[in-house]
Structures are given as structure tokens and as C-alpha cells.
């Protein structure tokens, strides 16, 4: 133990020797979390940008168009055309469609010329809607998005016949008054920052250490060296996590459960990063290799985290891979504590710990077989 402690002190001495690097070690996580805090300063709002082409000159058609202006919680009307003739419609359609193509609007609503007659007859009026399929939100949430303008229309017409109103009461959401985007994104972004920073610094821990072969001539054995590096970089990671955690709290991180549980979750993310970093460093023989491994692993972890494609939608083999990786457990753990007030769930904690232990053992094996010349 005394030898390991001395080796840990040696690690700190080595890290301290690059003062600028040492400052950046804590400065960059701080800067990233500050930028994340500012980037999510606005409320979570979805206002669909929309163009309207009204072919119906009668009152009901005008009311329908007006409803989109009044539904200003979900709709922002960018342009409104009234067309009576086919040529007018053609011109308006081409212009509005071009706007849809150029990302200026997300939705094009056409009110057909027979709209009012349908309303007068008490039958079901038709709306023709073009959505931007490249923007993932508008095409998936069309019915929800149209709820407000439809209700505004009924309000204008003062006719509630056939209305079935859905009233949502959100559970486990971020309460009003809290930074919405920060908190909804925190479950992914904060562990991502912690894991990346801890993995980055430890991925060069062995590969850059030139006196390592000479160290092996002393009583220090390979296991002691790996353990001391793991302890040393874990202690640095703890400070990094504290910096990130306290800054996130300062920016309004909403935690329904215990803040200590969130801190422990972030420490788990950091431990995964340190284990991965040390493993990368043991299997790399140059800094360039370690860097290549680092970015490869980091991008792989991010793409398979479930943030891009939900794990439940993945094919079984890919879902199994994702579930073996740390983000599949860290993200739900974070969200369950922050939003549901849950405690540290061992169904998620055990896989994270197993991941760290397996990587550490792999690092020990790789380091044991590593050839080093004095």
C-alpha cells in the first residue's frame, strides 16, 4: 500500500509538472458546462413555422387561417396567401414550397376552396398539409401541433360540436421556472462531458510516461503501477466531477431526488472514463495511437448511447452492445434520480461497476504483456 501511495504521489508530481495542462484539466470541463448552461438558457418551446394558402374566401376559411395566427403557443405564421384562381394558387404554392425546401418554414397548410361549405354542412372539413420530413419533429408531432389552431378555430366559430379535448398533466417533468432544456439534456450531456474529460486525461497516462521501464527495475510491480494510475487519475476525476456538478447546480440543475445520488452517478461516469482511458493507454504504443483509440471509443460510445437511436428501437444484437456500454445505464440512472426522485438503482449500478472492473482487469493483462525496454 505504501508503494502504491508513493506511486500516486509520483503521478501527481508528473501532472503538476505541466502547469498549463493542469489548469486546462479543470478549466475545460468548467468552460464546457458553462457553455452548456448558457446554450440551454431558453425555455423548451416548439413553435412551428408555417405558411398558409387560403383558397376559401368565405368566413370559415378566413377563420381557419386566423386560427393559426391566434395559436401562437405552437405556431408562427411566416406567410399567408389568399388565392382565388388556379394561377394564383400555383404561384403561392411554388413560393411556399420553396420556403419549405429552404428551411424557412416547417409546415405548409392549404385551406381548400370547399372548406366553408363543409363547415356549413356540418361535415368534416379537409386541410391539406405539407410537412418537412427532414425536420424530425414536425412530421412526427403533426396531430399534437395542430391541436391549438383547431381549438382556436372552434373558439372563433363558437361551435364545440364534435370536440374531444385531450388535457395533458405531465408527470416527472421539469417544473415550470426551471431551466427546461438544461435539465432535459443534462442526463446525456453532463455524463458525456465527465466521461470524455476523465478518459481523455487518463488515455495518455501510460503511453507518455517515458521513465516507466526504469520504474519497473524498482520494487514497484506492474499491478502497483496500474492501480496507482487508476487511483491518481480517479482523484483528479473527482475534482473534475465536483467542478462540473457545482457549476451545473449554479445553472439551475433540477434534482428531485438526492443531489448526492446524482454526484455518485457522475462519479460512476468518471470511473468508466478513467478505466477506459487507462485501458486505451496500455494497449497503445504511441500518443497518436492513444488519441485515435480515444476518439474512436468516444464517438462509438456516443453513437451507441441511445441518444441518436433509442435502445428499445435497436435490433437485439446492437441493443445488447449498447446495454454493455456505460451510457445505457448512466443516462437512465441520472434521469431517474433527477426527474423521478429515485435512489441509485442497483440494476444500473452493477453493470457500470462490472464495466469498470472488466476494463481495469483488461488493462492489467495488457500491461503485463506489454514489452518495455529501458
Amino acid at each position, binding site marked *: 500500500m505504501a508503494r502504491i501511495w508513493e506511486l500516486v504521489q509520483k503521478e501527481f508530481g508528473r501532472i503538476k509538472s505541466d502547469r*498549463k*495542462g493542469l489548469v*486546462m484539466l479543470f*478549466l*475545460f470541463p468548467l*468552460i*464546457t458546462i458553462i*457553455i452548456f448552461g448558457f446554450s440551454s438558457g431558453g425555455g423548451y418551446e416548439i413553435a412551428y413555422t408555417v405558411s398558409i394558402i387560403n383558397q376559401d374566401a368565405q368566413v370559415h376559411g378566413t377563420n381557419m387561417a386566423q386560427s393559426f395566427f391566434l395559436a401562437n403557443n405552437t405556431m408562427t405564421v411566416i406567410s399567408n396567401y389568399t388565392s382565388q384562381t388556379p394561377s394564383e394558387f400555383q404561384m403561392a404554392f411554388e413560393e411556399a414550397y420553396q420556403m*419549405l*425546401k*429552404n*428551411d424557412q418554414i416547417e409546415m405548409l397548410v392549404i385551406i381548400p376552396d370547399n372548406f366553408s361549405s363543409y*363547415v356549413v354542412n356540418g361535415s*368534416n*372539413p*379537409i*386541410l391539406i398539409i*405539407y*410537412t418537412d*420530413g*427532414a425536420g*424530425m*419533429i414536425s*412530421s*412526427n*408531432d403533426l396531430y*399534437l401541433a395542430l391541436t391549438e389552431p383547431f381549438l382556436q378555430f372552434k373558439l372563433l366559430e363558437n361551435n364545440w*360540436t*364534435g370536440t*374531444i379535448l*385531450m*388535457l*395533458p*398533466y405531465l*408527470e416527472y*417533468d421539469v417544473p415550470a421556472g426551471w431551466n427546461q432544456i438544461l435539465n432535459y439534456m443534462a442526463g446525456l450531456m453532463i455524463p458525456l462531458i465527465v466521461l*470524455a474529460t476523465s478518459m481523455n486525461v487518463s488515455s*495518455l497516462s501510460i503511453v507518455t510516461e517515458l521513465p516507466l521501464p526504469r520504474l519497473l527495475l524498482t520494487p514497484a510491480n506492474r499491478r502497483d503501477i496500474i492501480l496507482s494510475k487508476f487511483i491518481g487519475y480517479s482523484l483528479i476525476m473527482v475534482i473534475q466531477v465536483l467542478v462540473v456538478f457545482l457549476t451545473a447546480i449554479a445553472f439551475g440543475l433540477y434534482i428531485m431526488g438526492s443531489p448526492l445520488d446524482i454526484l455518485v452517478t457522475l462519479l460512476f461516469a468518471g470511473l468508466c472514463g478513467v478505466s477506459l482511458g487507462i485501458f486505451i493507454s496500455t494497449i497503445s504504443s*504511441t500518443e*497518436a*495511437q492513444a*488519441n*485515435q483509440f480515444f*476518439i*474512436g471509443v*468516444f*464517438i*462509438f460510445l*456516443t*453513437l*451507441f448511447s441511445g*441518444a*441518436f*437511436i*433509442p435502445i428499445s*428501437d*435497436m*435490433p437485439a444484437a*446492437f441493443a445488447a452492445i449498447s446495454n454493455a456500454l456505460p451510457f445505457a445505464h448512466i443516462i437512465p440512472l441520472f434521469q*431517474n434520480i433527477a426527474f423521478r426522485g429515485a435512489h441509485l438503482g442497483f440494476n444500473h449500478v452493477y453493470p457500470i461497476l462490472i464495466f469498470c472492473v472488466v476494463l481495469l482487469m483488461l488493462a492489467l493483462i495488457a500491461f503485463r504483456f506489454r514489452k518495455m525496454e529501458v
Partner: protein
Amino acid sequence: MVSLQRIFKLVIKELYLLKSDKRALFMAILLPPLIMAAFSSMAILSGTTDENTVNIAVVNYDDLYFNYTLPNGTAIGSTENSWAQILIDTMANSSLTRVKAYYNINITPYGMLYARQLLDQQQIDAIVSIPSEFSEAIENQFPAIIEVVPDGSDVYSLTTTLNNIQEVITEFQQLNNITPYFQIEEHVEFSTGGGDLLGSMSALSVPFLIIGATLILTLLVVVKEAPLARLLMTPAKKSEILLSKYITYGGIMAFQILLIFIVNSIIGLKVAGSLLDFFVAMLLVGFYGISLGILISAISGTEIQANEYFLGIFLISVLVSGMFVPVESMAPWLQALAYAFPLAHAVPLLSNISLKGLGLTYGPNLLYTCSLLGISLILILLTTIVFYRKKYEV
């Protein structure tokens, strides 16, 4: 005068330097396409995003007996629940919702409590509560209300949950002729199709991967090169050394991108626009990556510093990319920062080419293309200034 012959020799020297660490070179070229292949295969095999079935528990209060008189004197007393039953059947038969649990409050008074437990255990996405006057409201042509308690912890699935329930309500109206309801004739434009996630995902994953791979490729090219000071004692000029690095790493970057492009094409990426435009857009993103990577390398004093600069810049670039937080919702100064980084331009540029078929210089793409190119040139200028001012000791 810049000598082309000298630049050529310096390029050869750079290639030798790269060849000296064959494993790193091998990884630089092979890792990005391998990761892309794994991710693209997953995207192509994964389920569709626009028809996720939502798990619900239905709590029915409509079976409760009540009796009261309206202000106009009409007496209402009823145990009518036929419309609630029809709505539940519609939900059970729809592909948009799956009824995991049903509680009739008349039989199970603590049904809402049990439903909440299911929500808490994440076994369902929402509770649909049908109030006691639901059937009567429809019978008497009053507005009928349905209460929904969705799981609000995941903002992305929340919108799908509410949208699906709203769509099932419309189905219920259509099937039972509860008029008038709005008929929506929907045209989804610029989409690669229901089950194909690859198109939309490529616009996000490709630039993310290219920026990461090219930054790492060039991160150590200046900071690590120990004989650089001695090289400056030869006729080779700083401008030639720098140019040779851009040429060498530009070539490797182009090869990396070609492999990523081929892998994506083999796996089945559909590009609505020109394939050449898509490839050139990828090259522009890569060019930005190597410009930034060489700048980081030039301003760093040690390899560890370069690594930390890289990580900070890469993470900030991802944070302000618009992938997670829309750029429009950021503060104006942060929007300016977002547009100084590549991903805020690269993601819409690739998306516009692959999904909308827009040309590289067409409409909004012209701005994205010019921005990527312009900022890359500014980065090269900055690198040149730093490189010229940097002191080297033999």
C-alpha cells in the same frame, strides 16, 4: 520563393513520418469507416421513428353513477359508458397505442393509484383517464374531455406519446362519425421513407465522426514533431512546411472520407441530391477539421495541452452544434459561437443535400458552404500567424 519541389519532398517526409507509426495510420484510416458501418447498420435495422407504439394504462371513471340538474333545468342521471368502451376498444386496436392495463373505477377504486405505480415503474408511457361525463358529453354534443398523464421525464418520447393519443382520438371520431372533425391530408416531403433512419441519422453522425477523426489526425502534427527546429535550418521555409502538412493530411482526410462515403453507400444511404455534392460537403467538413486540428497543434506547447485543447473544442463544438439544443434557442452571443464551429453548418448542409436534394450552393446551402470554407481559411491564416511567431530551439 516557394519551391514546389521542396514542398513535394516535405510531403514525402510527412508520409514517412506517418508510416513510422503504421498502427496509428491504420487506425486513422480504418476506425472511422468501421464505426460508420456499425452505426449505419444499426440505423438501417432499427425500427421506424414515426410510428412508435405507446404503452398506456386506461382508467375509466365513466362507469360511475351520477345524477344532477343542469342550470337550464335538464336533469342528467346516468351510468352511460358506451362511448368510453368504444374509445378503449379503439385504443386497444390501434397500432399507435397498446393498452397495458385497464381499470374501471367502479370495480377497482384504487385504479389510478395502480396506474401511477405502473408509470413510476416505467412500464407505461402514459395514463389515459376517461372522466365520468365522457359518454354523456358525446351523446349531448358537448365538448368531451380526456385527461392524459404522460411520463414527462423524456422530452422526446413525450411528444410522440401525446401525438399518438391525439391521433387515436381522431381515429375514434372518424370511426364513429363524431362530427365535425378535421380531416388531414398529410404530405411528408423530403423524407427517405418511414423505416429508413439512415438518411436523417447520417446528417448528424457523419459530420460528428468526420470532425472527430480529422481533429485527432492532425492534433499532434506540429506539437509532436521534434525535428521541426532543425528542419528550419535547411532551405525549407515555414510556409512550405505548413503547406506540406496541409497537403499530406488533406490527402489522408480525403481518403478517410472516401471510405466513409463508400461504406455508407454500400449499406444503403439514399441521397436525394447529387452524390458528388454530398461527397464535396463531407470534404468541406473534413477540411475544417484539419484546419482546426493543425491550429490546435500549432498553439499547443505539449502533447497533453494539445489533447486538452482538442477535447475542449470538440465538446464545445458538439454542445453548440444544434444536435441537442436548437441553435435558435441560444443567446445571441452563443449563436455566434455556434456558427463559428463546423457542426452548426455541417448538419443542415448534409441534411439538405441528402434529404431535400438541394445543391451544394443552392438556397441556404450556399451560406453553409461559404461559412465552412471561409472559417477554414481564417483558421489556416491564424495557424500561419501562430506558426511564424512560434519560437523553435534546436
